[in-house]
């Protein structure tokens, strides 16, 4: 399916749960509400015409320093979906606030989401509800803070960790 048609299909099916859509040079994006996220993701995976069988990437953006977005929800969790069967792609976003940075997990839909969500937790401190094992992925347990948050000082040094016995 063409990207615009996918967005129209999602809007027709989920109505107000699709907050915003846009397409830019062939890349199409839909922003959905947190409540509808798993339903929308599940539909994208299971619907025969969409058939997004690959979760290409799951990441997040801290928009707290983005001009014009300083006052809105702080984080955007981004899902990049691709379909091998139909050769089309879609980007889904969900916005979460700083006070309650929680998103339902996508691990039951795509097992690869396990490590991707752990990385997002590691770097941004966004929690994933229902994740089987939400630990840090790249950094170590003694690390304090989440370094890709825009308010993490670029020159903050963490204490060195010693050898584990």
């Amino acid at each position, binding site marked *: 399916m063409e990207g615009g048609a996918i967005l129209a299909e999602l809007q027709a099916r989920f109505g107000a749960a699709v907050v915003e859509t846009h397409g830019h040079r062939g890349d199409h994006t839909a922003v959905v509400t947190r409540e509808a996220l798993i339903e929308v993701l599940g539909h994208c995976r299971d619907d025969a015409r969409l058939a997004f069988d690959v979760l290409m990437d799951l990441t997040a953006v801290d928009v707290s320093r983005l001009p014009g977005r300083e006052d809105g929800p702080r984080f955007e969790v981004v899902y990049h979906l691709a379909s091998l069967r139909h050769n089309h792609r879609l980007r889904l976003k969900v916005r979460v606030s700083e006070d309650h940075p929680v998103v339902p997990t996508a691990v039951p839909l795509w097992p690869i989401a396990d490590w991707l969500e752990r990385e997002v937790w590691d770097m941004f401190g966004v929690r994933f509800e229902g994740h089987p094992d939400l630990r840090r992925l*790249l*950094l*170590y347990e003694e690390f304090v803070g989440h370094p890709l948050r825009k308010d*993490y000082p670029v020159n903050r040094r*963490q204490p*060195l*960790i010693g*050898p584990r016995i």
Partner: protein
Amino acid sequence: MGVGSFFTSKLDEAIGWARKYSIFQYPFVTACCGMEYMATACSHYDIDRFGAGLPRFSPRQADVLFVVGTISHKMAPVLKRVYDQMTEPKWVVAFGVCTCTGGFYDNYATVQGIDTIIPVDVYIPGCPPRPESVIDGLMKLQEKIAAGAQRF
């Protein structure tokens, strides 16, 4: 030696001379500097000319620890463990700016110089250092090995 002549060399100097030409190195290669290390170790530049041609991939058999490449906070305990496992006498070479100072990785993940973890004998700057720099560093290390007090 004929009758009545003396063997005047000090034992330390003899041992230092032997040690500086029998460097068994442990290459602790973590990043892109490793390519330059390989170029130096291979036949074109050939560190075997300096007696350093045998990398030992066990720290227990090595004399010199070559730390080649960026050391992250997560890797730091591993490096410390490897250093502790080496037997005396031992020396450490910091290979490339990342190991010397952290280089341009002025961020949350990178150790700002391996001398915050283990003592370093020779620093070889460069990003990455050319093989000539490496050989220069190696020769400086040889001078240091030969000149130092020999414990045995």
